[in-house]
């Protein structure tokens, strides 16, 4: 029995050792050479093209966010006046440009009242959340969960406003405005809503006067601003279509403001 067991493994070992040596070594050498060369060539191309693609998209959609925060107290006060009382804005609505590096660039907000910023939208959104909490509390309905829901409702409103402006620009054949510009313009919505909600907290009946007024002011502000954005981008002029779409933007402000200004626990209403 011992002799038989010993002989069988020996035979198997000899059989397995002989065949693979030359063929295996040949395949390994050829495969490694081909794979290394191929990966090197294709890898370089893929990385190069993808990095260029990402850079172009970043520069297209996300211009420098630092630009939108170059503000001071004076600009904030003046901008709030323009947003809340657009009828009293005597100057023009065109943004100031300056040649930088061989191409025209817009001046930062600190030097141009018509330039959009992100500080006022951000603070207005925060104020909206605080005032919503205060309003809920005065009606005995405050809870952290309700405040979180209103935060989400505010973000949803901001997104819908930005989507409205973006779709309007795209439908008019102009999609070149930076995304942060659109977000900034949409964020100014909350300044009017904060004013209306604050009025309701202080004096209940003033809400029914302030809400239509702030809707109208925001509508006028957006029409003026979008008109400038369109004229800066679109060379061809189709007056009837432009006017209808701008009027549509102004009219949509009324339901949007009403929805965002309705502070309740049921955030769908």
């Amino acid at each position, binding site marked *: 029995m011992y002799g038989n067991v010993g002989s069988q493994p020996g035979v198997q070992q000899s059989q397995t050792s002989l065949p693979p040596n030359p063929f295996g070594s040949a395949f390994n050498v050829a495969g490694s050479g081909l794979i290394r060369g191929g990966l090197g060539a294709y890898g370089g191309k893929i990385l190069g093209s993808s990095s260029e693609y990402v850079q172009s998209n970043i520069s297209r959609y996300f211009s420098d*966010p*630092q630009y*939108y*925060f*170059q*503000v*001071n*107290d004076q600009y*904030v006060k003046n901008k709030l006046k323009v947003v809340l009382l657009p009828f009293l804005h005597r100057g023009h609505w065109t943004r100031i440009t300056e040649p930088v590096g061989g191409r025209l660039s817009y001046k930062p907000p600190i030097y141009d009242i018509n330039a959009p910023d*992100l*500080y006022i939208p*951000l*603070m207005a959104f*925060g*104020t909206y*959340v*605080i005032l919503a*909490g*205060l309003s*809920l*509390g005065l009606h*005995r309905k*405050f809870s*952290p969960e309700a*405040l979180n829901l209103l935060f989400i409702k505010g973000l949803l409103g901001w997104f819908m406003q930005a989507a409205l402006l973006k779709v309007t620009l795209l439908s008019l054949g102009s999609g070149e405005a930076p995304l942060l510009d659109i977000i900034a313009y949409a964020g100014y919505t909350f300044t009017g809503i904060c004013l209306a909600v604050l009025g309701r907290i202080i004096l209940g009946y003033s809400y029914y006067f302030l809400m239509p007024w702030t809707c109208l002011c925001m509508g006028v502000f957006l029409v003026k601003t979008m008109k400038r954005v369109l004229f800066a981008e679109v060379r061809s002029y189709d007056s009837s279509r432009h006017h209808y779409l701008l009027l549509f933007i102004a009219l949509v402000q009324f339901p949007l403001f009403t929805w965002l200004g309705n502070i309740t626990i049921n955030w769908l209403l």
Partner: protein
Amino acid sequence: MTNKEFKVPPVAFPSAGNPASAGPNLQQRRMPTPPFQPNSGIPFMSFDIGSAAASTSSGPIYTGPAVGAGGSANFDDEEPLLDELGIHPDQIWSKIRSVLNPFRVNHTVHKDSDLSGPILLYMSFCLFQLLAGKIQFGVILGWIVVSSIFLYVVFNMLAGRTGNLDLHTCTSVVGYCLLPVVIFSALSLFLPVDGVIRLSVAAVFVLWATRASAGLVVSLADGGDEHRGLIAYASFLIYTLFSLLVIF
């Protein structure tokens, strides 16, 4: 009667005998082959088990004394537990006292930022809210994180290239300046639930916290001097949010 008694035993014996005779025969035939193979295998296994047991027994004996010797040698030289954890009670107390002064906050003691003081204040805040019947541990801690990130983003964006406020310092300042709100939450346990009194007291404490926070942030980091008002408004939003938890 006697005939029946005699007849039963003879019937039982033949029926029991047949399977008994068959069983032993089969067992005897099966027995010879299995015993040989296990007998040959068992001695090898027993030897291996014995050697393994010997090796395992020797290991712990050698390693035990070394561990004991090492522990006894290092224990005397260890730092105090608070120092090792990075908690300095005297530093925390001096920072709290600086925030307690509502008119002039000493910003030099806040140069070294830490998070143990803020955590102490968070726990106190949660405790006072718990005494008021509100379980808001998760809400308070979550909103602290969001508020710190919010102030950090706003400050560094406003300051531009010269902004050097880091998130650790920002979280430390926001946490320490929450002290007025914590005091308000303790005080609110004795205030009437309804009325203008609660709102007025809240306004005083929020302005106090806002002033301390804006002053500290502007003095601790660069680039914030010309944006003090804008940064103060961001701080105002943060502490108003926390005071809402106390008021309602």
